């Protein structure tokens, strides 16, 4: 019980810190040293926290994951299914974004804006920059803490503290080599 409360407190503190940082960062123009230093520090902190909290807590080894991806691709090529096709659509979206952004960047023309230029029209204002910084930072915490296993669990033994929730297991079968996620809630990873 106290452990659950403690996790909730830590989650609340993390959320409060993120909101406070976003509110402060929103007032810093992108050209200032303050903006550069603060964003660099946040990146370093999130990466270091991810490395520390994720030590021995990944669901599977990287090689196993890569082999699972390879197997899934070979299986899809020989016997296409709807789940693989769905994943392919995501890949097409990524390539469309990346390709068009690269094309716009290389041409450097006024009628071919890059996506970051368009987003810059939003982040030049306090509210826009604050909201985007908040979303970006919360996303970073999710990448650092998401799907971590309980301490002491071995990779691949299915003792994840993360929740499966809607849409959680779809790709475990497609690329990971076995659905290993179990119930819980997102805040549980902050242990």
């Amino acid at each position, binding site marked *: 019980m106290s452990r659950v409360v403690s996790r909730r407190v830590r989650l609340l503190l993390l959320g409060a810190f993120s909101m406070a940082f976003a509110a402060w960062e929103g007032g810093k123009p992108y050209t200032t040293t303050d903006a550069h230093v603060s964003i660099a520090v*946040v*990146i370093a902190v*999130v990466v270091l926290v991810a490395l520390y909290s994720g030590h021995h807590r*990944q669901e599977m080894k990287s090689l196993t994951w890569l082999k699972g991806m390879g197997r899934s691709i070979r299986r899809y090529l020989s016997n296409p299914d709807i789940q693989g096709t769905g994943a392919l659509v*995501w890949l097409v*979206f990524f390539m469309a974004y990346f390709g*068009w952004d690269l094309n716009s960047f290389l041409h450097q023309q006024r009628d071919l804006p890059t996506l970051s230029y368009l987003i810059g029209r939003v982040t030049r204002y306090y509210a826009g920059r604050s909201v985007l910084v908040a979303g970006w930072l919360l996303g970073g915490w999710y*990448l650092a803490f998401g*799907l971590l296993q309980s301490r002491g669990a071995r990779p691949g033994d299915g003792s994840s503290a993360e929740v499966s929730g809607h849409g959680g297991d779809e790709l475990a079968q497609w690329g*990971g080599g076995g659905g290993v996620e179990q119930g819980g809630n997102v805040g549980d990873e902050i242990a």
Partner: protein
Amino acid sequence: MIPGVVIGDVVWMVIGGSFATWLAVTSLPAIGRRLPNGVAIVRHFLHSWIGRVLLLGAWAEVGWHLFCQRP
């Protein structure tokens, strides 16, 4: 063409609109069980260190680019 809207804006609107539609469709419970949604794609990468590091690298690059290099 709407004044002030250039061809690049239109392409981004098409990509963004299609992306948002696909995101919404795959998030529907009935469809989300059969097609991977956005959350499932991210979670798939979080199963191992290599996927997590790839996402964290992309996240860091996006943050630096958007908040330190662009207006």
